[in-house]
Structure formats: structure tokens, C-alpha cells
């Protein structure tokens, strides 16, 4: 382990925590607007929504990648330039993104669904700047992903990295679950970032032809959700890969080994997750009906292999263990459980019959905030906590562990419950104010503001504590 790897991981984590606090503030402002506690107006609401969504998706994707880079560097020589270029691209991309949203008033949402960028654009330069931001972020992340894939392939062949010999029983090197899950996730990340590349190219062609050519909306929507849905799934798996490496050690148990069922489940996940995004197109009547059925079936199967195996592994690890519950182990354990809750919410929404009712209601942000805010974010915060405990000047005080953990769990749970209730009451999402027919949305937004503020307080305490314990290492 080189000092550079530690310092650069630390730099990533501090940057991620700061951007996360900003993005939470954007989110709370949106809920305050819906609660009629402030009046930012519809334009600023959608500007905040665009910035909040992309910052959150981006920040927790790079958090997962930083974790993978760090753990990989404990075993192999990982080229540093991939992470450095990705860091530079992430900073540049975020700056251009915020210029496009706050200065040129681009407000088409983080998934920039076609043809909205040509309308919800503010100034004419808005969509151009936004697409440049996506291109910078995508290029940096794609490069990083390829560098990490090359690092794994220097040691293992593709079939070995996919642990096929663990399934067939043929001789071969022992492949840890961390390598298997990282490899599977990085393949998915590469595919979805390539979808973003195709998407951005098609947008730029249409912009360059200024009205003389248009893209097929169905193709654009498919590419958008292939990118967006797959990315948010894969970034969760990146966090899980690190969990598989660290959690058994926290419980004082031997490291996880790749058994045949773990290998099968993650190979299945590699394929299934690429098709699950079809459930975003249930309302698109022009989509071939067969795709809709594939979307439903794949959505049912998507969480089964990864989630069932992981939940089983985590529960058996904790059972009769000598676990010393630190903030890291608490966040990992509860992160997996909340991931399961959010997964059930997602499956319910992905059933076509349910989707007719739940589509575009607050059920959607309810489920994805559950497995992101209380799942994926917890995984990355757990890694950061473990990192700070290992390399920081001191371990986190037990009283601080209790306070921060309680604030994050109570704040996060209350916040998502407000969304679930909104979904059950058919309160629409993506609106800045509610009509009389769904005025429950106002009181639920007030409830969300209170709980999200608790979560924010917890995160501020976490960030201050983390920086206090680790910042010295950065400049040592």
C-alpha cells in the first residue's frame, strides 16, 4: 500500500462528503418548496432537481469507484493516472454542470430525457454546457473503469475473473468475491457509460444540425435508461464489492470465499441488470411488447441473486460473531437491510399492473432514496469510516457513533417514509407545488424536511469528525 493511494483515496472521500452536503441542501430546498416553506419558483425548483440528481448519482458512483481502487491497490499495482484523470474530470464536470444549471438555467432533470433538453434549457448554451459536463464526466469515468478492468485482467483471464472455474470445479486461481463483484460491476459500468457516449453523440448531432434532423425518441429513451438505471445499480454493487472484502474482518471471521452459488449469482447479475431498465418504458406504448415482459421478468430476477446471497452472507457473518459494532459495521449491516427494503419497493413498482398506479408518483423517489440514501450511501460511508479508523489520527468516539448513526437512520427513515406515503396517496413526483387534490403532498413534504434536516445534521457531524481525524494525513 503506497502513501499516494491512501492520500488520494482520502482526497476523494473529503471531496465526496463536501459535494454530498451541498446536494442534500439542494434536496431539502426542493422539499421546502413543496412544503410551501420557501418560494423558489418552478424554474429554480427544476434547476435544483437537475443539479441534485446528477450530483448524487455522480458522487456515489465515484465513491464506489474510489473504494474499489483502494482495495484493489492493496493487492495489485493499480495505475494511479486513471483515478487522477477521473478526479480532474469529476471536478471539471461538476463545475460545468453547475454553470449549465445555475447560470444558463438548464433544468431538464438529471436523466435529460429526450427531447426535454431542447425545451427546458434556459439559455441556448444550456443544453450544450450540460452535454459537455456529461461528456467530461463520462470520459473520465470510462477511462477509470477501463484502467481498473485492465488491472484485474493482468492477473486473471475473463473467465477466471468471472469465477467460472468456481462453478465448473475446474482448477484455477482462487478469485475473491471482491474481484468477482468488481469485475462484474466494472463491465456493467463500462456498458452504461458507453450508452451515455452514444446518447451524447446523438444529442450533439441533433444540436449541430439545428432542427434539420431529429432523433428517434424511443431509441433515446432506451439509451437514457440503459445508462441511468444501470449506472445506479452498478454503483451499488461497487459498494457491495468492498463490503464483501471488509465486513467479515470486522466480525472477526475468515474472509469470504467465492463458492459456486456466489459465482453463479454474480454472473447472473451481470446479465440481468442490463435488461432490467426496460421497466422504465412501461408507459411507452411504442416499445415492443416483448421488451415490456422482459423488463418485468428481469426486474423480478435482478435483486434475487445479488441481494439474497449478500443478505444471507451478512446475516451468517453477524450470527454468533465477535462483532465489535463500529460506525462502519453498523452502516454496512443496516445498509444491506435498507437495500432489501428499497429493493422490495422497486420490485413492487416494476410490476406492470402496479406501475399503472405508481408511475410518476412519489413511490419512485421513495424506493430509490431507500436503497441509495440508506443503502449505497451507507456502504460508502462505512468504507470511509473504516478508512478513517484505520488511517486517521484516532478512532471515532463511541458516543459520536451513537449520535451520528441515530441521526442518519432516524432522519433517513422518516425522510423516505414521507415519500412512500406520498406514493400510496398518488402524490406526483417532480412537481414544485401541489394542487388541492393532492394537498397531502404539502404536509408530507414538511415531514420530509424535518427528517432530512436530521440526516443533514448527522452528515455534517460525520464530515467534521472525518475531516478532523483524517485531514492531517492528507498534508503529512
Amino acid at each position, binding site marked *: 500500500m503506497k502513501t499516494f493511494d491512501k492520500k488520494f483515496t482520502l482526497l476523494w472521500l473529503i471531496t465526496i462528503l463536501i459535494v454530498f452536503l451541498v446536494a442534500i441542501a439542494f434536496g431539502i430546498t426542493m422539499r421546502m418548496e413543496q412544503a410551501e416553506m420557501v418560494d423558489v419558483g418552478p424554474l429554480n425548483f427544476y434547476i435544483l432537481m437537475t443539479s441534485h440528481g446528477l450530483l448524487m448519482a455522480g458522487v456515489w458512483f465515484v465513491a464506489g469507484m474510489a473504494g474499489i481502487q483502494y482495495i484493489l491497490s492493496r493487492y495489485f499495482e493499480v495505475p494511479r493516472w486513471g483515478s487522477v484523470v477521473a478526479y480532474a474530470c469529476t471536478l471539471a464536470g461538476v463545475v460545468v454542470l453547475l454553470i449549465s444549471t445555475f447560470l444558463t438555467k438548464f433544468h431538464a432533470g438529471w436523466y435529460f430525457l429526450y427531447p426535454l433538453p431542447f425545451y427546458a434549457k434556459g439559455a441556448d448554451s444550456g443544453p450544450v454546457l450540460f452535454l459537455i459536463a456529461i461528456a467530461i464526466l463520462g470520459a473520465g469515468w470510462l477511462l477509470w473503469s*477501463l484502467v481498473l*478492468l*485492465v488491472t484485474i*485482467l*493482468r*492477473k*486473471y*483471464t*475473463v473467465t477466471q475473473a468471472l469465477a467460472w472455474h468456481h462453478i465448473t470445479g475446474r482448477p484455477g486461481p482462487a478469485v475473491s468475491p471482491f474481484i468477482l463483484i468488481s469485475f462484474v460491476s466494472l*463491465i456493467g459500468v*463500462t*456498458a*452504461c457509460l*458507453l*450508452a451515455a*457516449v*452514444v446518447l451524447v453523440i*446523438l444529442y450533439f448531432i441533433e444540436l449541430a444540425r439545428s432542427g*434539420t*434532423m*431529429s*432523433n*428517434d425518441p*424511443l*431509441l433515446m429513451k*432506451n*439509451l437514457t435508461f*440503459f445508462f441511468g438505471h444501470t449506472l445506479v445499480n452498478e454503483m451499488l454493487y461497487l459498494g457491495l464489492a468492498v463490503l464483501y472484502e471488509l465486513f467479515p474482518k470486522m466480525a472477526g471471521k475468515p474472509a469470504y470465499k467465492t463458492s459456486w452459488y456466489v459465482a453463479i449469482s454474480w454472473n447472473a447479475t451481470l446479465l440481468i441488470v*442490463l435488461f432490467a431498465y426496460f421497466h422504465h418504458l412501461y408507459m411507452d*406504448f*411504442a416499445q*415492443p411488447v416483448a421488451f415490456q415482459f422482459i423488463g418485468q421478468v428481469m426486474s423480478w430476477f435482478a435483486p434475487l441473486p445479488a441481494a439474497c446471497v449478500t443478505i444471507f452472507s451478512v446475516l451468517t457473518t453477524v450470527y454468533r460473531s465477535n462483532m465489535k459494532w463500529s460506525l462502519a459495521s453498523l452502516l454496512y449491516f443496516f445498509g444491506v437491510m435498507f437495500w432489501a427494503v428499497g429493493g422490495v419497493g422497486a420490485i413492487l413498482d416494476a410490476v406492470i399492473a402496479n406501475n399503472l398506479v405508481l408511475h410518476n408518483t412519489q413511490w419512485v423517489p421513495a424506493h430509490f432514496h431507500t436503497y441509495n440514501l440508506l443503502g449505497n450511501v451507507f456502504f460508502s460511508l462505512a468504507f470511509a469510516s473504516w478508512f478513517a479508523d484505520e488511517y486517521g489520527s484516532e478512532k471515532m468516539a463511541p458516543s459520536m457513533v451513537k449520535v451520528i448513526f441515530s441521526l442518519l437512520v432516524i432522519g433517513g427513515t422518516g425522510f423516505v417514509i414521507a415519500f412512500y406515503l406520498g406514493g400510496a396517496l398518488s402524490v406526483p413526483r417532480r412537481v414544485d407545488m401541489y394542487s388541492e387534490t393532492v394537498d397531502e403532498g404539502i404536509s408530507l413534504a414538511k415531514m420530509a424536511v424535518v427528517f432530512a434536516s436530521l440526516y443533514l445534521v448527522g452528515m455534517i457531524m460525520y464530515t467534521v469528525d472525518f475531516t478532523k481525524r483524517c485531514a492531517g494525513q492528507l498534508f503529512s
Partner: protein
Amino acid sequence: MCWAAVLLSFLLGQNPNEMDYLLRKIPDATFKTSDSSAMHISSWYSKKPVLLTLAYGRCPGVCNPYLLQIRDQISLLGSEKQFQVVVLSFDAEDQPKQLWRLAGFNENSPPPANWTFGVLEEDTRASLLTSLGLKTQMVGGLYEHNTVLALIGEDGSILQWIEGLPGTAQWDRLFKELTSEFVPVYSTLNNTVWTSCFQYDPASGTWRMSWGLLMILGPALITFFIIIILQSITRNDRTKNNSSILIQNQL
């Protein structure tokens, strides 16, 4: 001559582009009816959907068979109260009753209540013709013109736009829209969508998947090839690694 104009435009490959007109609002033009009263088109489309077409009474060509075909098709539908057919003349010299004859009506067999005939007033005529894409040219005292059938919604916007004689599939789609039946997808004859997911065969009215849909597979296929290339590039590193592991094991 009108037929010649339609045929010529077809041969020259000037495909009508429905997308240029769909969802655009038409001006609320005024016209004179057979009882000499002035009416706004909005007085009809604000109440129910309007099937709007334009013709002129002295037309020696397409207007008569065109209106007869519309009448025949509508009689097959049998839901006449749900919409209004408005036939307007763009020729100021016309009388509304002249248009009756083109559609096969006369004093003994007058048009039913859901048919309205009128002559456009001078002030809004040009703007209505432009908004509907109706092109006219005076040649030898007669008009050369194309034919347009538009379905107008209750806010005055064009919901469907058909140039020329509608085909069976177009009538089918039009009637579904008129009777509020769901129309999932249809061709807009727009050739500028080069990444189209579907190809439409107007002759059979059927669809088949196009290569645009296959582009969805592109990112996954490219990733597959990238992984294969990366495996091949890193072969030497793996051999070195394996050799060093073998030496360590032997030692």
C-alpha cells in the same frame, strides 16, 4: 390538372411531412354558410372534433371524387354525432350549396346535420390555407391545388393531417382518433429520423423493427469486444504473473 399536380408532387418525391402540421393551431377563420350567416370554425371544434377539408365548387378534378370518398368512408363509421365534417371553399366566387354537389348532396338529398359547408371569408382565408398546408395556384381561371384532410381538436390544434387521398390505414387511424380509441403508433412519414426504431410499410400498414432498435444493443456489444481486446492486451502480464507464482511455489 389537380390530379396532375398531385401526381407530379408524388413523382418528385415531395413527401408530405405531417410533423410540420401536427399539434399546430389553426386560425379561427370565418366562413359564410348556405343561409348566409357568418360562422367561426371554433364554433364547431370547441364542441366536438372537426374533420376539416377544403375544396372549390368549379373544380374539374379531384374535389368531387375526394369529397365522395370522404362521404362514403364516414357513412361506414356510423358514429356521426361524435364529430362534425366541415367542408370550406377557398374560392370567393363559390356558393356553399355548390359544394353540396361535390359531396353528392342536393336539395332533395341534403347533407346530414353533422356536415357543414361554407365559403371562407377573404380576411382569414390565406392564413387558414397556410396553416393547413393547402397550396393553390390559379391556372387558366381554375385552381391547381392539393387536398388536405385535418382532424381538429377542441383547442383548435391539428390532431391528424393527411395529404392526398387517405389510404385504408389512415382512415382506420383517423376513425380511431375520432371515436377516442387508443392509437399507439403510426407513421408520420418523417424521413429525418435516421435512427428510427421501426420501419413502416404504407402498402400493408405493418411495422417491422429497424436497426435503430438494434442500436440499443450497441453499448453491450462494444463492451464485450473491449473486454476481449483488453484480455488479449494483458496476456503477457498474466503470463509473467503466473510464471512468478509458479517459481514461488517451486521454491
